């Protein structure tokens, strides 16, 4: 509000100058951000693959070994082997097509059980073992959870007295 310069129409030349100055400033901001974006994408972008994808990639480009990747797969039942100290574990992951042994140092989340879907981040070594640095277990039915007939509880449901007296049957 203070110091408004009143009256005189600004000259054409000054307008052009102000405008080009603003554009130069905008270009500096834009290119700095662009540069930061490019470099950080290079640093943090990770392939998100299935074991089959990973096997194909490794076959085509040997440099894929020792490169950080993310792999989404299922834990093969009965393969979880926990270290007695609780600090590390190993298991096998698969997508049906390809299976990789995984070793992980750290504490597994409690959703990590047989047959569950996992996302591991880490590197594949030349022997074909995947060394995971992070381990996430996904519950497949997180928000969409209609009761299904295939659910083990279905027969129980049907036989419980509640089923017949369900407050809304026939409503």
């Amino acid at each position, binding site marked *: 509000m203070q110091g408004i310069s009143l009256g005189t129409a600004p000259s054409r030349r000054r307008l052009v100058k102000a405008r080009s100055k603003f554009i130069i400033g905008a270009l500096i901001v834009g290119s700095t951000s662009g540069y930061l974006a490019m470099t*950080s994408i290079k640093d943090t972008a990770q392939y998100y693959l299935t074991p089959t994808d990973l096997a194909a990639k490794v076959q085509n480009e040997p440099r894929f070994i020792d490169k950080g990747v993310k792999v989404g797969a299922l834990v093969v039942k009965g393969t979880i082997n926990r270290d007695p100290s609780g600090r590390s574990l190993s298991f096998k992951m698969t997508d049906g097509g390809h299976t990789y042994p995984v070793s992980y140092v750290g504490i597994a989340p409690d959703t990590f059980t047989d047959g569950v879907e996992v996302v591991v981040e880490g590197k594949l070594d030349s022997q074909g073992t995947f060394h995971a640095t992070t381990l996430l277990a996904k519950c497949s039915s997180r928000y969409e959870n209609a009761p299904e007939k295939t659910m083990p509880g279905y027969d129980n449901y049907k036989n419980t007295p509640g089923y017949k007296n369900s407050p809304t049957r026939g409503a």
Partner: protein
Amino acid sequence: MILLGELSLWVALLMAAWTTMVSFAGGVQGRMDLVHSGKRSLYATFVFTVVASAGLLTALFTHDFSIKFVASYTSINLPKIYTFTAFWAGQAGSLLFWALVLTAYSAVAVASSWKNNKPLMPWVIGTLGAVCLFFLMALCFGANPYERLDWTPADGRGMNPQLQNPAMAIHPPLLYLGLIAAAVPFAFAVGALITRKLDTEWLAAVRRWALLSWFFLTLGLVLGGWWAYVELGWGGYWAWDAVENSAFLPWLTGTAFLHSIMIQEKRGMLRKWNVTLVMATFLLTILGTFITRSGVINSVHAFSQSPVGDWFLGFLVLATALSVYLIATRLNDLQANVELESMVSREAAFLYNNLALVGICFATLWGTLYPILSEWLLGGKQEIGPEFFNAVNGPLGLLLLMLTGVGPLIAWRRASTVNLKRQFTWPLTAGAVVFVTLFALGMRDPYALMTYLLAGFVTGTIVQEFVKGIAARRRMYEEKLAPAAFRLVTRNRRRYGGYIVHFGVVVMFCAFGGLMFRSDFQMLLKTGDAQTHTDAYGHTWTFTSRGISQFDFLNRQVTAATVAATRDGKDMGLMVSEKRMHVNTQGQQNFEASTEVYILSSPKQDVYMVFTGMADKDTAAIHIFFNPLVMWAWVGGIVMAIGGLIVMWPQATARARQGGYVAELPSAARETLVGAGV
């Protein structure tokens, strides 16, 4: 009631279709009778959507498990409050909630702007009707909340325990209230573009809705962060997750619009830009909904893959095409008649503010869509981590923080050296003092130092503005300090409310600065074992395990780890983190185990404890985070919301005529009923 609700949904669909058709036809032919019919049927759409919603609520509360939605998200032993919030906990219900709010907003917007913006009305009503029509179509054909199962379970699956949290009960509706409000400015923009009435008049109506949208989005985002922090157990509140981003994007363009609109009001500049921002904000809300609901991008809290995604994609493409076409064909009408005069002016500061906000928006959008883009273009799905977002948005955020201080102080058109000196001496001194103090205390992180330097500077500018304003009032009206301060704010709500919002932003940035000093560690503690760690302030913490206990409680089996904490030898009390196994009325486990974290909170820092698992029956795996200054993120959010309320509150003199959205509702509802009866 349930059947009535189901039928109402279809009637609402027909009403919305009618609204769209007759309003556009009325606009093209210039027949006001058709537009009146469109207005009435828009009100009727709202009424029938209310009935449809009431029907679903009835189904939820009477536990009608033959309805898939009810069986999927509730159970008999679910507390009443969460039975109510289940309305928006799942895909179909949340869409219905969306339609409910959208039709309500549409009715209120049309009722309150009918007199002042008559030439635009055919197109505004038509556009709002079309958006309602789309949502109702997605509901009826994509995800119908009334879909039945072919058997009736005795009990439903219940609600995901992580959603059973007070923040989760109100966070989604707040976000929806914010996202949906963006539809009204969009409709006005379409109207203004079609009729080529692109002066500042349409902006007045739009500004109120843009503010409302901004207010709810701000609250929703902050609450969402708080929920993630206390419930998800990874020790942070913002992960640049696709779903978080999708609500953040329209907030950015909306904030940019609220600033650039001032330049158009004061100087007549940026007309193209403002229309673009309004349309982009709406399109981003639809894009965000698409991302959230289609399952195209992995996210911790996405809905599962669903056909609704295709509906949203189709709508997004259509709406984008329309927006681009309208703006492209009206470029000449949007020509500004004024140009930027100087780099050292408020206009320039606002332009850079917009540049920073839109830059953050672009970077975030790019990062969010990168998994899809890389799959298309590079032939392999790649994901990018939070480092990307921090690297790009960090500097832009600091630029924004700086402009928060510069913008309000610098003169319009061209600032003189005298103006600069008078306005900036004290704030710059304040920033320098903060910087030197922190440096002397041993802070060396450049990002954090920069943040606090700017925070000091901006706080200085805000304090200076208040001090000057209060002093002026005391001189002119000989008022005492408190009434002068009160009247200063209440007589200039827009300006001083804005400063309060800015102060909230500063407080929040102070919290972000604290993130630079986070640390965390994992421990395996046998009962009685202890470990010692040092936090960022140099305090020594000792954590001693008091063992693991197991017990049943309500609808869950609980395993709890207890740790006694001391800071520099001083007792800080017990910290208890729980693993919860949730069971239904039949005693079967119905959800994955969840974790209740413990947060020892103080203004200086949060000590955040997560019980991650048991190595054996008396060895607990515990993850501890030292999170400095987290509390200030919530405080900043509250301050921003208060500032937003002050800005939105109608001025006393104008209140009777204009009305806020709250004051407007009853009369709108009355009109609606009349409209439905005719």
